């Protein structure tokens, strides 16, 4: 079962701000879902290989050919804040 402290820890990992009300609700909801998920604990999975890919394909290789990328101005047009031809963000230490 998930408690308030765990919810806050996971929210920090996920870079997600939660209100007090969201934290309380999340603790209950995640506990319910994890309770269902924990049914897989009953299975004997000794020696079973974890899935890495569902279709049996060898390495996917392609020719390493240069191609044009999106123009800088097209990309920056969609950015919330731009400075000196780059994405602008507040200082990490502010």
């Amino acid at each position, binding site marked *: 079962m998930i408690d308030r402290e765990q919810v806050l820890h996971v929210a920090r990992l996920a870079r*997600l*701000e939660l209100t007090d009300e969201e934290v309380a609700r999340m603790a209950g909801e995640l506990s319910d*879902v994890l309770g269902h*998920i924990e049914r*897989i604990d009953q299975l004997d999975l000794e020696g*079973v290989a974890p899935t890495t890919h569902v279709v049996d394909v060898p390495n996917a290789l392609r020719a390493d050919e240069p191609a044009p990328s999106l123009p800088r101005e097209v*990309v920056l047009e*969609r950015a*919330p804040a731009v400075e000196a031809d780059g994405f602008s963000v*507040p200082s990490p230490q502010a």
Partner: protein
Amino acid sequence: MTATDAVAFTAAQAVDALARGDLSAGELFAAYRERAAGEELNAFTWVAEEAPAVQDGPLKGVPVAVKDLFCTRGVPSQSGSRILEGYRPPYTATVVENLERAGTTLLGKTNQDEFAMGSSNENSAFGPVLNPWDRGRVPGGSSGGSAAAVAAGLTPWAIATDTGGSIRQPAALCGIVGMKPTYGAVSRYGMIAFASSLDQAGPLTRDVTDAALLLGHMVSRDPRDSTSIGLPEAIRLPDARRLDGIRLGVPEELSGEAEGIEPGVMEAFEATLRVAQELGASLETMRLPHAEHGLSAYYVLAPAEASSNLARYDGVRYGLRSDGSDLVSLYTQTRHDGFGPEVKRRIMLGTYALSSGYYDAYYGRAQKVRTKIAQDFHEAFERFDFVVTPTAPTVAFGLGTKVHDPLAMYLNDYCTVPMSLAGTPAISIPNGLSEGLPTGFQIAGPAFSENAILDAAHALEGAIGFDGSRAFSRGGMPSTPPERGAPGPLGL
């Protein structure tokens, strides 16, 4: 030809009518544009003002609706999320480019659950979609807008995506055809990602022939998606009328024994099994011993992948930005304001399952369960041509009835998730009514068996003779229902 006649055609019939000159591309587009722009189901999030320049191709002049999460250059592509509100991508998804090259015209973008997370379309930042069979009920999800638009005749057909059932389940709840192809058949380039090892694009259509026609033009091997492999043989238009010699396996875990299957859904399923026998198929109950654990594995793996994929929404390069005094608070506040409750829940679940100390217990075990489920299918397909199940355990449920109970909502995917985990193709076709609402019949086959599945679905479709005209005539339209006597399989 009147606009009512034009929209009564299936897409395949429209292709023929356009080729004969009975119908012009402009007329067809205008007829659908009027319906899509005036609809009342909230199925569309954007409708084209006018038809774009049409490329010459086998589908020349046939409009298509596209789920919001496919990137379309210069056209809103928001994946049902506030965090991408107003976002117009600088490039187009490969599958949409493939369809444009085949001659289709982009009619509009369709509503969906936020980032394709949901089974009712109630998780969209742009409001829920209403089911055209009963506007007090959900259309299913996550591709609810695409499914409702097709069922109501607001578009000839639509493309959508399926991660754990997001094409098949809304197809079932709206009384139309939906197919999830083999993982890798269709490029994921330009599809806004949910869970990359499961996401696949596929068609939502009025009938099986249209599903084959549309899927055939979606499939490709794409250098921009290294997991795309195309299909070993081209998709054919199905023509089977019989099922002689076809061996159907009915998994007890996903039918009689399944939790929460409504009696009416089970009756409709059993009626179709009898139809299959009359067409010459043999039936046998069988077991997929790990299928009952599919949901548990899925609700670890899909949120885990989502928590990683959705890390890109940080308020820096595109989309919503909320004020933050420093960089971390800019991230956390943007994500708080931009994501809805279900997306937050899945990010939390996935982050927890991947976090230090829990990774082996959740993610590691779930990937092993996935291997066992894939093995179950592999063994089943040594004995059976197809595995068949009800698509969804219930008919369309009332708006608001499950939205506050995540686990009850997740159980809707019970019969569709195992095929997603195994990467195998599956189709849902209309299977008759229960309580006056559509139910779906799911046919799953081994990897790359799309043509065989489409043939079997075509034979069953002909024998079932489902009438979807009720949703069509009520449509999303406030105006009068279509006139009687129009062509098409909608019984009009």
